[in-house]
């Protein structure tokens, strides 16, 4: 195993595990604000308890997100030193801004939200929830800005020593790639939050417990789920895809498995790309669809991999293709499920339709898979570049850290994160089986603080 591969796996493993937690907190942050708002308007103790319950779930996820997030900032330096040395003047800025603008705010108001309900007024508690939501979304923004600059570098110049320097603060933050990716990514986080909330509601109804809360969770989860699953495809996914197609033709060709340039390119729904023959095996294709989706006309030319020099093909082509297809396939399922569930909710039949509840319950892991696959699509599509068109991945890893040392710490992280995964599962299972209803008045007093 080469050092380059180890460093890539190191970052990929730690970031993939990390992102399981923020995608829920960012989505849930918004939904908690919605629930708190209803509680504040109606004065309903039940909605307040629902908010406290999701606050506890949020809190557990937040802690796991924090502790697995700290290594990410370090790894830019530890594992990607040559990249950091040249690009630190640009991407160090949004990373530092995340700490300064988001983490201070988030940690301050989360402490207040979770520990301070009795010390502050109802309005202030709502405001704390709102600020936690804002903090988590700001945090997401700066990470997207960092990634977007690597995908689509803007507003920079190179100094004589090769380092990149920021030319415009606002152009860096308002990178069109970043705005599109942010909209798509945050909608994805809301999808995860909605599915988890709806699945919890479905679980309680199927178990015939906590039914009052289950209805709240299903109502909020399905409505937010319907809106977010539509938005994730149109317009956010659609616009983002078009922008990728214009700026990273190799990525889109790899994602779609398009080996040959075609006028009126079809979209492959299922099939396995074969790099040796340059074909899709066992294909099911919708004719002309790809040209239409990218350019709005069925006859437009879409660049295939045949027009891209072999040394600029995405390095893990089949994985890129599968990641994209898994994301898109699951996205389609999400919309169908949520349209049906929302229809049943409207007809007041959702709470009694056991098949729909089962489908919602079993679907909760799928948004995690789709979000992960989406990020894999973005990052594998960028390969073989670390900074698109400017710096190759093979030029960026730490040359002084050997493959063996990298493997040592990668194995260490794998062990540690296995432990975390077990702890997390136990704790979430426990919170969900305890449920939002306080067992006794005394327990309520403890939990409220």
């Amino acid at each position: 195993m080469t050092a380059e591969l180890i460093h890539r796996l190191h970052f990929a493993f730690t970031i993939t595990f990390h992102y399981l937690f923020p995608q829920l907190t960012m989505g849930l942050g918004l939904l908690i604000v919605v629930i708190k708002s209803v509680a504040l308007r109606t004065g309903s103790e039940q909605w307040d308890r629902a908010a406290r319950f999701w606050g506890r779930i949020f809190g557990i996820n937040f802690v796991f997100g924090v502790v697995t997030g700290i290594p990410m900032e370090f790894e830019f330096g530890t594992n990607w030193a040559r990249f950091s040395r040249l690009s630190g003047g640009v991407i160090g800025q949004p990373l530092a801004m995340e700490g300064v603008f988001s983490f201070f705010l988030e940690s301050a108001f989360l402490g207040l939200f979770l520990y301070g309900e009795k010390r502050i007024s109802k309005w202030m508690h709502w405001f704390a929830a709102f600020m936690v939501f804002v903090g988590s979304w700001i945090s997401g923004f700066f990470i997207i800005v960092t990634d977007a600059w690597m995908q689509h570098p803007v507003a920079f110049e190179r100094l004589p020593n090769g380092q990149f320097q920021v030319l415009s603060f606002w152009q860096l933050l308002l990178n069109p790639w970043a705005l599109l990716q942010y909209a798509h990514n945050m909608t994805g986080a809301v999808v995860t939050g909605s599915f988890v909330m709806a699945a919890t509601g479905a679980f309680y109804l199927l178990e015939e417990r906590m039914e009052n809360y289950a209805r709240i969770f299903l109502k909020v989860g399905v409505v937010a789920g319907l809106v977010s699953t539509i938005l994730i495809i149109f317009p956010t996914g659609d616009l983002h895809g078009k922008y990728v197609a214009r700026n990273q033709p190799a990525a889109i060709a790899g994602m779609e498995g398009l080996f040959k340039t075609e006028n009126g390119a079809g979209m492959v729904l299922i099939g396995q790309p074969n790099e040796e023959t340059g074909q899709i095996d066992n294909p099911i294709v919708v004719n002309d669809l790809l040209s239409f989706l990218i350019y709005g006309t069925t006859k437009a030319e879409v660049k295939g991999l045949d027009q891209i020099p072999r040394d600029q093909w995405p390095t893990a082509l089949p994985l890129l293709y599968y990641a994209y297809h898994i994301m898109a396939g699951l996205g389609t399922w999400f919309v169908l499920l949520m349209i049906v569930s929302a229809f049943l909710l409207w007809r007041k039949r959702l709470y009694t339709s056991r098949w729909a509840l089962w489908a919602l319950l079993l679907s909760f892991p799928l948004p995690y898979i789709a979000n992960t696959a989406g990020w894999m699509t973005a990052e594998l599509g960028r390969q073989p570049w670390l900074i698109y068109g400017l710096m190759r991945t093979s030029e960026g890893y730490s040359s002084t850290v050997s493959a063996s040392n990298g493997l040592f710490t990668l194995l260490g992280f794998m062990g540690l994160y296995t432990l975390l995964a077990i702890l997390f599962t136990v704790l979430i299972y426990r919170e969900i089986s305890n449920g939002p209803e306080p067992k006794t008045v005394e327990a309520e007093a403890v939990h409220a603080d």
Partner: protein
Amino acid sequence: MMGFLWFWLVAVMIVGYVVLDGFDLGVGVLHLFLVRTEEDRRATLASIGPVWDGNEVWLLAGGGTLYFAFPLLYASAFSGFYLPLMIVLWLLVLRGISLELRNHIDVGVWRALLDGVFGLSSALLAVFFGAALANVLRGVPLQDDGYFFLPLWTNWQPGPHPGILDWYTIIGGLVALIALTLHGALWLTIKATGELAHRARRIVGPLCLQLAAVTVVSLAATIHVRHASLDNYFNYPFTCVVPVGVVASLAGIWLFNRSPQRPQPVKAFLCSCFYLFFMLAGACWGLYPTLLPATTGPDRDITLAKAISGPHTLAVGLAWWSFGMALAIAYIVFVYTRFKGKVDLGSAAH
């Protein structure tokens, strides 16, 4: 000028981190042997519960600031200190998890395990941070290309090819362990009540004496390992106010904690903050304008001039940094005033 400014801005972030996260690390260490009952433990943990996470943000914000202001230093030091940094990361993960999760499951074995993990990881982190600073002061075997890689240990001697751990950096670790334990004890004298506060106050005196002793040893050792550390002090004699400040802060801790009629825990704690500030500022001043000395010859030192980012980057950075940190300090003051006063277990559990 920009170089001078950013050197000290990064130094301020590091001091901010050590002063704030320092007391919760210290509380973690004390948690191993100062507490007797479950009540004590809950009070100890509740004293840092709402703030530790915000304190740790200083490390991230400081790291990020270092990253864009001195990318060469960030790249070189983080990859060169690869192994100890990874261990620090693992400890930070274990510590955060054990602190937050102990109260979620009411089972004795579970709590005992997590309490142990929390205490040990806190102690090891304090030692590692001290040793890390000592590594920077001693210097590292920089190559021509500005990179290096340090093994965890070699022959335990600070020579041209040292390891992370040698007798000098172990002294550094010891200073940090004692200083932060003392810092945590002083925090508990402010936040805790009853018997626990009393025990915390009693332990301050001995810790203060030990700290004075290791401080003197560490200063002598630093001068022995790197004579150049004194240059700035000789060239600008008024900066000798820094070592005077160290001594005065130690004396302050002792006196404010001792005064028999009315101990003044807040003032003693502030003196401890000043101690940490003077020690770190003094170390930075001993280095300036070098950022990371080379044990392989002074022409390989990573200096301010070599490592500083482009002027436009720094100008852009200064604008948002000042605004952002002003906001951050406002939140921090807000949170600390909300949770000020003694820990009230009735309302502090979650």
